[in-house]
């Protein structure tokens, strides 16, 4: 990517430390024994049955699991969008009661506002009270970070799927959160764009040093991106195992270590890979 150098030069200060240089230690998110039941007309459907795991500071953790297993539900609970019945979710030692600007959610299908320009979307989280000069500086910095300079005034429907997803990342990063929650953020993209966006998110994560919690059903994606991969069971879901992923970046999906990791995750999911 030709503008990588520029991006590093303009990256927010204090965030340029690659996460891998210094292994993360402190617990950022602590999920303990979370239970949740969906109430439907046909009765109660238990979705989460004692989900427990931790995400460390500056860590990139991926949760993988079969479709409909409740991975998005646990992420919504962690983000404070949905209530749960029992257990606890703490971020920085504080229980989560509502969403916060310090923890921004990146949606499965782009959640950027179609009626706002790229500039306005990225500036949305900064609030209306912020003076224009200051806002413009921040917005332009993140427009550069995601490589969308020249598209400030474009409306989302004039952008490709990948560009929209970049706007969404920029909007999330502009409020300088500690944590990014990624709910299958590349789900709606085509295969090639998805590959490109994975590189992009790793670059952004390394550049900004955010804690990232990714939910996906794509095992390869999880193995490419995450420091650790948490594998969920079918519904009602628990975490089966959290597999550390020490592979050096950039990662090559064709190397043996990568293939072994994937095989281990698939084995845990109980999926026969050969067609």
């Amino acid at each position: 990517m030709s503008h990588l150098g520029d991006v590093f030069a303009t990256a927010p200060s204090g965030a340029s430390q690659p996460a891998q240089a210094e292994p993360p230690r402190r617990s950022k998110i602590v999920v303990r024994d979370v239970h949740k039941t969906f109430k439907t007309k046909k009765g109660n459907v238990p979705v989460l049955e004692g989900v427990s795991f931790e995400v460390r500071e500056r860590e990139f953790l991926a949760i993988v699991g079969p479709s409909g297993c409740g991975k998005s539900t646990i992420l919504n609970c962690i983000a404070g969008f949905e209530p749960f019945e029992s257990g606890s979710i703490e971020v920085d030692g504080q229980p989560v009661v509502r969403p916060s600007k310090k923890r921004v959610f990146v949606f499965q299908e782009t959640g950027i506002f179609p009626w706002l320009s790229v500039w306005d979307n990225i500036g949305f989280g900064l609030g209306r009270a912020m003076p224009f000069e200051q806002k413009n500086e921040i917005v332009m910095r993140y427009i550069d970070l995601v490589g969308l300079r020249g598209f400030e005034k474009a409306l989302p429907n004039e952008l490709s799927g990948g560009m929209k997803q970049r706007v969404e990342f920029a909007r999330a990063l502009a409020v300088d959160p500690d944590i990014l929650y990624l709910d299958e953020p590349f789900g709606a993209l085509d295969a090639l764009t998805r590959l490109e966006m994975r590189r992009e998110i790793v670059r952004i994560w390394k550049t900004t040093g955010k804690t990232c919690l990714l939910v996906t059903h794509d095992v390869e994606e999880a193995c490419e991106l995450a420091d650790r991969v948490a594998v969920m069971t079918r519904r009602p879901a628990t975490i089966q195992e959290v597999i550390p992923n020490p592979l050096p970046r950039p990662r090559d999906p064709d190397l043996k270590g990568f293939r072994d990791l994937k095989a281990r995750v698939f084995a845990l999911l109980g999926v026969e890979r050969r067609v």
Partner: protein
Amino acid sequence: MKAFERFTLPIAGFAAFLALWYGVVAATTPAPRRPASLGFADPHDGAALFVVVDPEQHRVVSDVLPLDRAKRLDAIEKLRIVLGEHQPTVAAVPRGTGKSGALPETIEAAKNEFGGGLVVGEIEAQGEAAEQAERRALAMQEKRQLYETWLPKPHEAFAALFEMIPTGEMFRHIVASVMRVAIGFAIAVCLGIPFGLAIGSFARVNALANSLIQVLRPISPIAWLPVATLLFQGGDVAAIYLIWLCSFFPITISTAAAVATVDLKYRRSAMNFGVHGIELARSVLLPASMPAILTALRVSIGICWVVVVAAEMLGVEQGLGYLVLDARNQLRYDRVVAAMIVIGVIGLLIDMTMRRFERTELERRGLLRT
């Protein structure tokens, strides 16, 4: 569909409609009614000859009326018998008979007794007086074919329309109606959209207002007409109130429904950035609901235009609704239909304008689905 059909097919549609219109009117128009006619001549002094011709143009009766003042009552009685049977609408008074003063007086008295519809004219008695009187009566009858009031044929309606355009009369009525709709609709928009946003955004406002609106909404504005006329003493305010009423509920309900279905990810995005309450409504719920709101505006201004015609039938003296009613009262059905044509055309123009507005607005807001 071929390109030329885009133009020819609509024209064919209109032509078919005009043909149907013409056919229905032509087929249902009652036969002209030619009332009996009455002619007078002055054969000799002291008497007048009268002839009655029936609708089939046969001589029914002729007689000599004495013009003697003293025998006036007899003359009236004779006329009464004749008029009673044949209800003539034309009478010709021989010139010169006025000298005695008895005949015109006699006819006048008969006219008063039998009500209107008796047209009195004078004929000159020349030659054979009776023949002359009969010929005159026939000639009058030819001219005075009376039609029942009936629906105009297309060309008659358009003639009435083009008759009202240069005098500025039509323009005056159009302006009055358009102004009422503009004011009533503008008030409905200014109140309905915020109210709908409030209902859609706040559960308490919804609980408070929703059931009430659901009860008030199905009440036709026409049913409100008597109440509005009394409450606002008729006039413009009553009409504007009805316009407001018929658009306020659809706008409010559509806005509330649109807000309720705003994509959860937009709400959550906003919540995530700490945006809630009125700011959420203004910066997220309103723009996200805009496609549905714009459609509701277009539909409800259409309803307004329908209702304004009814609203103008009481207590106002201008406007297309007034024109329809007034023309009907004058039995000028050609004007009634001319007003209907204008109402249709302006309704179409309003809809086209709103569609264009809707499109540009969605385009500007990046919400146009392509």
